[in-house]
């Protein structure tokens, strides 16, 4: 009987304290990237080690955890992280957005509006919004310190010059609390407006880059743009093929090699919830058709 025993939520208490201190600092300075001593986690970098450490540090026994990857509750990454915490912390897990208290996410913000007392934890690959324009870390830090953000507009300018519109579709830079320019992690820009004045606490963890940043509840988050090229959230112009939603973010799914495709909600929980409530789209799954048939047959 040598089964390994882990501390609650995997990390030891000292590490969690260290991460919590970084989180508190991040909340105190919205949008500012706080360095922290990121640990090796039992998963590769790029799989959400930053988000997992933040989640581990804030998780309590009474929390209910939801993990999504690209909006979906049932992809490999989401399932394994959910299992990880079910095993090491023994917390309840859920796929329902409104029942969760902590939601760890990769690349999406749930469609269901978040409420106060919920925490959204983002997995961040590259926290520095200026990175691809200015490779020097010393220089980007100085630019943040002096709020020199002209360079960010250079990127948007390049987009318009090349494509005729701001072609940045994800990781769209935002200004937090009218001070720091922040990378909202690779969420589609469709989700940017949800960050503004959000009642939930939003935490961002970048494990490889060793940075934590945060947006406290009810904080102003503005997407950068030009006066004559204002920010516009992008969405495929179609209803969800399964639930018929007109206002959710859609994934495009190629269904054959003849150009066939369907658009479905990327937020699976939202889509399932709507289908259960009786909404359906042009390609609704069989159970609803069966139900409809049953109802018709009496």
């Amino acid at each position, binding site marked *: 009987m040598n089964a390994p025993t882990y501390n609650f939520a995997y990390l030891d208490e000292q590490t969690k304290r260290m991460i919590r201190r970084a989180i508190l600092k991040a909340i105190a300075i919205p949008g500012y990237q706080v360095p922290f001593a990121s640990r090796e986690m039992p998963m590769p970098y790029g799989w959400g080690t930053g988000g997992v450490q933040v989640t581990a540090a804030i998780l309590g026994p009474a929390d209910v955890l939801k993990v999504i990857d690209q909006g979906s509750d049932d992809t490999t990454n989401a399932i394994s992280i959910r299992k990880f915490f079910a095993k090491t912390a023994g917390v309840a897990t859920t796929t329902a957005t409104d029942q969760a208290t902590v939601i760890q996410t990769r690349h999406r913000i749930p469609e269901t509006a978040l409420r106060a007392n919920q925490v959204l934890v983002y997995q961040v690959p590259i926290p520095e919004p200026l990175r691809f324009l200015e490779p020097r870390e010393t220089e980007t830090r100085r630019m943040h310190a002096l709020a020199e953000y002209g360079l960010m507009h*250079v990127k948007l300018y390049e987009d318009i010059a090349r494509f005729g519109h701001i072609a940045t579709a994800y990781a769209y830079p935002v200004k937090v609390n009218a001070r720091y320019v922040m990378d909202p992690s690779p969420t589609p820009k469709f989700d940017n407006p949800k960050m503004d004045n959000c009642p939930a606490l939003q935490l961002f963890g970048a494990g490889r880059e060793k940075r934590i940043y945060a947006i406290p509840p009810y904080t102003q988050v503005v997407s950068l743009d030009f006066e004559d090229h204002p920010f516009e959230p992008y969405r495929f112009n179609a209803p969800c093929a399964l639930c018929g939603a007109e206002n959710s973010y859609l994934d495009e799914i190629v269904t054959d090699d003849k150009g066939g495709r369907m658009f479905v909600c990327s937020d699976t929980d939202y889509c399932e919830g709507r289908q259960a409530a009786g909404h359906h789209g042009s390609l609704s799954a069989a159970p609803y058709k069966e139900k409809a048939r049953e109802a018709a047959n009496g």
Partner: protein
Amino acid sequence: MADQNFIENDEPLLVAKSLSKSFGRIHACRDVSFSLYPGEVLAIVGESGSGKSTLLQMLSGQLAPSAGQVSYRMRDGVTRDLASLGEAERRFLFRTDWGFVHQDPAQGLRMAVSAGANVGERLMAVGWNHYGRIRDTASDWLTRVEIDTARIDDAPRTYSGGMRQRLQIARNLVTEPRLVFMDEPTGGLDVSVQARLLDLLRSLVAELNLAVVIVTHDLAVARLLSHRVMVMKGGRVIETGLTDQVLDDPREPYTQLLVSSILPP
């Protein structure tokens, strides 16, 4: 109005007071003093290692002097010591009221972003937020430095050496600075391209009433562009005066050597 101009031009824009810089035991620059007036072009000439570039870095606030001070008359008319400026102020000054033309355009340009964005960067840095206006201004400046506006969306790495240098000049002048530092702006260009660049610089300087500090080892550049010349050797200024005077009638033996080492045309 005329009086106003007279007063403005009567006060120096940049004043260096006994500037010295030593790196350990090496004295790169010793006791350099001068005043630069608005619209004046000052050439600093001398051989490699004479302290020209060190001096330029001190004047432009990139290097702290070991002794002495540099003061600059800001746009509000107040003359301030550069050392007393905060970093934010200094960087702001560098982006707005000053220009710096590097010898190697790759240092002064963003080689991977388009020419338009290169010129527009300073405007965006001071808060311009209208794409159309930024682009119009950028294309206007490209025209002024004789770059075909059809190439506004090309990155400078696709440009020739002369075009890069002209783009760098446009990028610096777009915020209408009053003072431009130039570090061997014609170095590495062939003679015909040099001539064209110098011609352009000369007309822009006159048109915009720019004050320029130009560091060069090429006396021809000094003769064409500058009003005054400072000759440096071993970190000291050994001779200074009006360009024609110094170059036609050099007093110091070293200056005589420099002047006589130019091939006669």
